């Protein structure tokens, strides 16, 4: 764990938005900061663009989605920089989404069939799928409990991701494609990846709080937001996750 004291701001790094921020990915940073704020906690958002040095002493790193060439460029820059790997070694938390999820693995194949090295933070490898996965995705994650375990999002990717022995899936897919084997995403230690892209934390506040609790090392008081509950009900229903199914989870 990094040397943070309870009074410190939670330092959240938005990594390379111009490359990995194709569709509302900054929303995850906004959700995390606001949810801390609602509990009287302080957040500091640090947006780092390529060409700038990434801090290695932050608490939480956010990797978003991007186009093929941008993904390769971002992966190379992050590997060269090394800060995120050092931070994870010290106990930092990472949320890696879509292209960012692929980058967090050992390697990924681009649209031209060329292999690229990833960061190796997650024990996964990604190959190219013959079909692009585009649409709503719903999965159930055991790292959360009860109804909160239902994760809802939108996926738009061409990857097939295989999990190694030191990774476990983030969730079991109920609707959509995810990794391509009936699971979505991966967890290795304090690094989480998912194909539910863009502002995934807006639809899944329990996942947002889970990340913050990993950082803080203590549970957060619940906050009620009726509209988020309504949104979850609408999107899960759209993906065929009915109320009965949700209650039985």
């Amino acid at each position, binding site marked *: 764990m990094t040397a943070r004291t309870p009074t410190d701001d939670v330092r959240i790094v938005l990594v*390379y938005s111009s490359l990995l921020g194709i*569709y509302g990915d900054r929303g995850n940073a906004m959700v995390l900061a606001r949810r801390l704020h609602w509990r009287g906690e302080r957040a500091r958002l640090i947006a780092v663009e390529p060409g700038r040095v990434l801090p290695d002493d932050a608490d939480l790193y956010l990797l978003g989605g991007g*186009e093929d*060439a941008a993904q390769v460029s971002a992966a190379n820059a992050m590997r060269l920089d090394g800060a995120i790997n050092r931070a994870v070694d010290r106990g930092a938390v990472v949320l890696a989404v879509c292209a960012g999820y692929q980058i967090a693995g050992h390697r990924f194949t681009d649209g031209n069939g060329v292999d690229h090295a990833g960061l190796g933070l997650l024990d996964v490898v990604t190959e190219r799928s013959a079909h692009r996965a585009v649409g709503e995705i719903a999965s159930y994650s055991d790292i959360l409990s009860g109804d909160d375990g239902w994760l809802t999002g939108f996926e738009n990717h061409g990857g097939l991701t295989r999990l190694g022995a030191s990774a476990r899936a983030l969730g079991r897919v109920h609707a959509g494609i995810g990794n391509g084997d009936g699971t979505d995403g991966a967890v290795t230690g304090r690094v989480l990846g998912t194909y539910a892209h863009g502002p995934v934390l807006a639809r899944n506040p329990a996942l947002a709080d889970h990340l913050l609790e990993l950082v803080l090392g203590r549970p957060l008081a619940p906050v009620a937001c009726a509209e988020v509950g309504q949104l979850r009900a609408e999107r899960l229903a759209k993906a065929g996750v009915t109320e009965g199914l949700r209650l039985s989870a």
Partner: protein
Amino acid sequence: MPEASLGKERTPLGVRRGSYDDLVQPMATSTPTDVLASEPSAASGRTRFTLAKAAGSLAAQVSRLTGRGSGVSIRGQVILKLDPNALGKSLAGRRVAVVSGTNGKTTTTHLLHAAVLAALDPAASDRVVSNDDGANLAQGLTSTLAMSPDADTALLETDERVVGEVVRLGRPDVVVLLNCSRDQLDRNHEIAALSAGWREAFVAAGVGGPTVVANADDPLVVWAASAARRVLWISTDSRRSLDAGLCPRCGAPLPPADDGVWACSSCGLSQPEPDYVVAAGEIRHGDRRYRPSLRLPGEFNVGNAAFALAAAHVLGVDPDTAIEAMESVQAPAGRFATVRIGDTPATLMLAKNPAGWAETLPLAGTDPVVLAIDSAAADGRDVSWLWDVDYEQLHGRTVIATGPRATDLAVRLTYADVDHVVVPDLESAVSDIGRPVDVVATYTPFQQLRKMSAR
């Protein structure tokens, strides 16, 4: 007003068309195994095209009579089904101008249309055809052109994905490229690929290719347009964010430009010296300065006018004539029209993607303000983009969130700390207000509101 030199270079009056089959190149959609698509002779090709057009008109009529729609799209679908080469045949022999990009196509096409019409004798207005309704895919273009067989000038709003095909088949005189920004990524997965496709079309067109009127501020447009035979560069004072994270030529990271002028430090691709500059409501071109009094709000519409002005100039329209004509354009395809929904006078604004919202949202000044969100195919099925829009600027006002994705917007506004009310039904969200209100809507609710107001 003297008639401008429309048609002077290539298609003198009265010496056009009738020989289109000789000019047409086969389309990629035709395959040797497709009996319908193979054309043994020019005569049978003409017959097929004529029959296809007749069938298309019938389909359009049925669609209108049964109240299903305007028939524009179905006509084009039927024509292209019966004659896969119909788009090329419809374009042949005409002077063509293409307007494309992710934001501002419809408005710019309307401005250009007004400018070109002003240069003609009013009695000759049927010489010009334009898809003013915004049907901008292959079927919409084919349908529009089939309706006006005698027009020798076609001003075509063209979907980003169809530009290459129209450049190849229609050999346009001028192509306007407004911008290349994130839009409906569930369909267009890579904006970099769009830009690369445009570039390929200009390379293939070679010395016979179009003059391109292109946005110098947008790296993806610059890379595409710089392959064209001739380019007129436009620099606008717009608030559009640039979506090129990487240099489109060499792939090096392209950091956001601090002073508004971008350059790749790796390969040197940089913002070209503009031919037209838009700043503070003024268009500068050489020693000339124009300050159009448009009926359309927003600095970005002065930018659109600059693109139309340059394109009109390529087509031979005198600039003063063009400016005066553009000043008369009002509510292009319903944009910024004030309509009555129930007892509410509502000003309708369209915003389809983050760049469009960045331009339009500052113009919506009422309190409350209505925001209507849908995720039908035409809107893009993924509403993740809501998190790329700066709704925080609405602090202190109340938003009425409506449309099928109103809840997604409500959550976004909650996190933005903006007061809001959700009224799922679009019509009552507007009609219940009872006093003038600004409405910003994605494509589907925008069209639904236009229809409601026409009832």
